[in-house]
């Protein structure tokens, strides 16, 4: 089937089996390699993208379900936006080690901060619980997101 959706601000039409994971559609057909494959079972959050602005795991979304909707990856984050602020904060707070989980964390953090700009550390810890960092750099990641929330140092 053909799926037409907005990807990082650009309208795309892609041919795909309907029950394919969105992640594969994004990585293979749309060359969005920032959308990572981790556990393939909805646990790790490496494949997180924004679907109509809400963070979802793209391994658990059926390709057909994005027809007519909007998908954002880190590759669609522009200068001067909250998303860029989050990305910069990850760099400044040393919140990146191997980097594999980073796109997922940035998008989860961004979507939560958009709705909860004054979130405190405990709220952020819970908000980011769907993303796993195998380097275990959680405190640095929380430092980064908290910095944007304006409650850090």
């Amino acid at each position, binding site marked *: 089937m053909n799926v037409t959706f907005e990807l990082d601000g650009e309208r795309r039409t892609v041919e795909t089996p309907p029950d394919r994971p969105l992640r594969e559609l994004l990585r293979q057909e749309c060359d969005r390699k920032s959308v990572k494959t981790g556990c393939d079972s909805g646990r790790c959050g490496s494949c997180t993208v924004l679907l109509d602005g809400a963070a979802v795991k793209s391994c658990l979304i*059926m390709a*057909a379900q994005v*027809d007519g909707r909007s998908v954002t990856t880190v590759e669609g984050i522009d200068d001067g936006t909250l998303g860029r602020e989050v990305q910069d904060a990850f760099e400044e707070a040393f919140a990146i080690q191997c980097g594999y989980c980073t796109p997922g964390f940035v998008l989860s953090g961004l979507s939560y901060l958009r709705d909860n700009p004054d979130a405190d550390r405990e709220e952020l810890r819970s908000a980011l619980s*769907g993303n796993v960092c195998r380097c275990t750099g959680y405190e640095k990641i929380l430092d980064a997101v908290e910095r944007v929330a304006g409650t850090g140092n």
Partner: protein
Amino acid sequence: MSGERATPDYFAPESVADARRRLAEEEGFVKVVAGGQTLMLLFRQGFVQADALVDVSRLPELSGLSTGDGRARVGATTTYADLAAHEVADRVTMLGEACNGIADRQVRNAGTIGGALCHADPAFDIVPPLLCLDAEVSIASEDGHRRLPLSAFLVGHMRTDLGPDELLEGVAFDLPAPEQSGSAYEKHAAVDDGWTTVGAATLVTVSDGTFFDVRVGLTAVADTAVRSPAVESALVGNPVTEDAIEAASEEVIADIDPLDDLSGSAEYKRGLAGTLVARSLATATDRAGGDL
């Protein structure tokens, strides 16, 4: 058949009527798609091989909550996040607590209430609070509408009363009176927000220092989510005391039949169920204005 998996036909109906028609007309094994948070895993693991998919996830008629005449109606494709953000989840605390403990934000943004009810996994946290509310499901097909109690809809382990041509359209319940009633959901999981080992939903009404009405629902301790009439009847009519809660909570073992599995032994879960019921009852009683 070769090892190559056949691609299912996919339909995105324009309306609920269109979805009902499609369910009646399609041959073979037809699967309704809502949030996909469980279904995608079942596809990948090869547990579900559908001939056709009917995707109701973008039908506005099926999504969202409404209240009126003291009743709340939850559309089948309302997400956990939608429910948790609604005033109903503040008013009926156990609903918000159950929603917010499910998996993580990403899953709650996509997973739906109707999807959870139809999958009927006894470990799904949203079901026991709805059982406590005596919720009723509405079901439709080309042959018409029907309603039945959620307790009758859940017929066994991951089995429901839903026919192959039928669509679950929503779930509805009477809102508890705000005065003198309180509710809570307590669960244990090996990790925060993890898969539930045991969960306990309670809804309590107190009157003149006495338990007037008590509802107890349990997660992951039987073939389906279950109520515990033993605890409920042991408490109703008794004075509001911690001792009464402790004694009644021990009765829960009469209504549960947990399994030995990776999350814990049956014996452990029986003990855990009593503890969580007591804890949940104490919180619900406190919220109901009961003086423990």
